C-alpha cells in the first residue's frame, strides 16, 4: 500500500476516463450514422406527425450543435435516464433490468469454467509434457481458437440437446437449479474458445516457472512436491494469466451475444441484436453502454487487483 498504489489507481482511472468518453461518443453518434434523417430514425414505425417530431427534437435537442447535443444526452444517461425504446415505447432501463439476470448468470458460469478448466488443464498439460493430455490440450486450443461460440454452441446443441437429449434445447429455466441446467450448454459453448487462451498461457507460464532457480532450490530444501507446485510454480505462473484477464472478459462479453442468439436465450445480447435489426436506436445505445461500461470497469478492477498480486508493480511503480 502507500502512495505508489494510490498513484497507480489514479493513473488507471485517468486512462479509463477517455475510453468511456470515446465509447459514449461513438454510441451517441449512432443516431447520425444511421442512413437518413435522425428524426425519421428515431420515429421508427410511428406515424410522422408534427407533434411526434417536436417531442423528439425536444428530447434529443436536435436544434443544438452536435457537441451540445452530446453533452446533454450524456447528462441524461448519467442520471440513469436511458430514454424510451422506439418499438415498445418502454423505458430502456427497465427492459435492460429484466434481461440482465440471464446474461449475468451465463457470464458467471462461463467464467468459472474458463478459470477452473482453463487453469487446471493448462497446468496438468505442463506437468505431463508430451503425454496424451498435453497433446489433447494443445489440439483443443487450436480448435477453440478456430471455433467461434456460435458454431461450438450449435454442435453442442445438436449432440447433447437433440441426439442425447441430456439438456434442454429451449428456454432459460425458472429457478436456480433449473437455470443451471438450461445454461450448461450455452456456458460451455461460451467458455470453450475463451478457455483456449487461458489454457495456452497457463501451460506456457508453468513450463517456464518449473525450471526457475527458486523452484530447484525449493525442491533442494526438501519441500514437498505439492507445496512446491502450489506455492512456487502455480502462484508465479498465474501472473501472466491475470494479465490476460482483460482479454478474457472482453471475449466473454462479445461471445455471450452470439451464444444467447444461438440458444435463443432472452438475455442482454439478444436484446441488443434485436434492437440492432429493428434500428431501435435508444435501445441500442442503452445496451451498448451497459456492455461497454462493464468491460471498462472490469478491466480497471483487474489492473488494480494485479498490483495486489504482483508486488513488483507496487514497489517499482508503473511503466507506460
Amino acid at each position, binding site marked *: 500500500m502507500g502512495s505508489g498504489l494510490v498513484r497507480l489507481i489514479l493513473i488507471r482511472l485517468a*486512462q479509463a476516463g*477517455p*475510453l468511456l468518453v*470515446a*465509447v459514449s461518443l*461513438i*454510441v451517441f453518434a*449512432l443516431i447520425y*450514422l*444511421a*442512413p437518413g434523417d435522425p428524426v425519421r430514425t428515431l420515429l421508427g414505425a410511428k406515424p410522422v406527425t408534427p407533434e411526434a417530431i417536436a417531442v423528439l427534437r425536444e428530447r434529443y435537442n436536435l436544434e443544438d450543435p452536435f457537441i451540445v447535443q452530446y453533452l446533454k444526452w450524456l447528462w441524461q444517461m448519467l442520471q440513469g435516464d436511458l430514454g424510451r425504446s422506439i418499438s415498445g415505447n418502454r423505458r430502456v432501463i427497465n427492459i435492460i433490468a429484466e434481461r440482465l439476470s440471464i446474461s449475468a448468470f451465463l457470464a458467471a458460469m462461463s467464467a468459472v469454467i474458463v478459470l477452473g478448466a482453463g487453469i487446471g488443464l493448462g497446468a496438468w498439460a505442463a506437468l505431463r509434457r508430451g503425454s496424451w493430455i498435453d497433446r489433447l490440450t494443445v489440439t483443443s486450443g*487450436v*480448435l477453440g*481458437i*478456430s*471455433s*467461434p461460440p*456460435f*458454431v461450438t454452441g*450449435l*454442435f453442442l*446443441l*445438436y449432440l447433447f*440437446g*437433440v441426439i442425447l437429449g441430456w439438456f434442454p*434445447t429451449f428456454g432459460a429455466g425458472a429457478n436456480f437449479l433449473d437455470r443451471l441446467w438450461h445454461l450448461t450448454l450455452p456456458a460451455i459453448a461460451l467458455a470453450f474458445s475463451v478457455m483456449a487462451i487461458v489454457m495456452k498461457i497457463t501451460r506456457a507460464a508453468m513450463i517456464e516457472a518449473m525450471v526457475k532457480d527458486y523452484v530447484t532450490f525449493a525442491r533442494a530444501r526438501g519441500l514437498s512436491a505439492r507445496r512446491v507446485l502450489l506455492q512456487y510454480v502455480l502462484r508465479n505462473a498465474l501472473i501472466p494469466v491475470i494479465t490476460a484477464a482483460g482479454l478474457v472478459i*472482453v471475449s466473454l*462479453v*462479445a461471445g455471450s*451475444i*452470439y451464444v444467447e*442468439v*444461438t440458444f435463443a436465450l432472452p438475455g442482454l445480447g439478444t436484446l*441488443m*441484436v434485436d434492437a*440492432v*435489426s429493428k*434500428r431501435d*436506436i435508444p435501445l*441500442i445505445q442503452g445496451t*451498448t453502454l451497459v*456492455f*461497454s461500461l462493464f*468491460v*471498462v470497469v472490469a*478491466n480497471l478492477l483487474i489492473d488494480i487487483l494485479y498490483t495486489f498480486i504482483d508486488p513488483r508493480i507496487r514497489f517499482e511503480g508503473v511503466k507506460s
Partner: protein
Amino acid sequence: MTLPEAIDAHPVRRVSRRLAQMPLLVALAFVVVCVVVMCAVLAPWIAPYDPSLQRLDVGVSLPSSDLILGTDTLGRDILSRSIHGASTALVGPMVIAAGAFAIATILGLLAGYLGGWIDTLIMRWVDFMHGLPSTLIVIVVVGVIGGGYWVAVAVLLIAFVPSDTRIVRSAVLEQRPRPYIDAARSLGISKPRILLVHIIPNILPIIVAYVAIDFAFALVNLAGLSFLGLGVEPGTADWGRMLSENRNLLLGGNPLGTLVPASAMILTAISMNLIGDWLFEEFIG
C-alpha cells in the same frame, strides 16, 4: 540466429527443403484450403443445382440419392449452397487480412523506424483502440449503418488494423539494430529505400504468417456478423447465414443444413491457423 542459416546462399533451396519436411497435419491443412478455393472458383460448374433454386414442393428433406445433403425449408439444395458459400467465406476475409496488414505495415514501419512523436502518436491510437470493446462496436456500427457484406468487411478491416500495427512495429524494432541496417545507412542509402528494400523483405515472413492467422479470425468474425443477420444480404448462400437460417432444422428436419456449413467454417479456420503457426515456426521462430 545460427551462422549456417545466415550465410545460406540458396534461399530457394532452403524453402523447398522445408516444404518437403512439412508435417502431415499442415499438409492436410493445405489440402483443405485448396479444396475450399476450388469450391469457390468452380462453384457454378461443380454444384449440382442452382443454390437459390427453391423447390417448395420438396420443402425440407433429408439426404437422398438425388440431393446428397438434403434441402432446407425452402427446398434449396444444401450441398450447392455450401459449395457456393465458399466464395463469401474466402473473398471477404482475404480482403480484411490483406487490407488490414497493408495499412498496418505503413503505420508499423513509420512507428518502428522513425520513432519519436510519430511512434508515440500511432501507438497511443493503437492502445486506445485496444481498450475499446471492438466486437461489440463492430456489431452495433455495422447494424446501424444497415448491414451488408462489404460494410461488414470494411468495419472489420478497420478493427483489425491496431493489433496488426503492433505486430509490424515490433518486427521492425527487431530489425532496426541489426548490422545490415547500419551498413545500409553508412552507405548513404535513403530512409524510404532502407524501409522498402531492406526492412520489408526481412519482415515479410512474419507478415505472411500473421495474414494467415488473421484470415482465420476474419472468417469467423465475418461469418458471425452474417449469422446475426448483419453481413450478407438475405438469400445469399453463405456459411454464417446458413447457420442462422437452418438453426431450427437441427431440432428436427435436416440437421445437415447447419452441420455442413459449420464444419466447413471450422475446418477452413483451423487449416488457416495451422498454416499460419507452421509458417511462423518454420520461417521465423
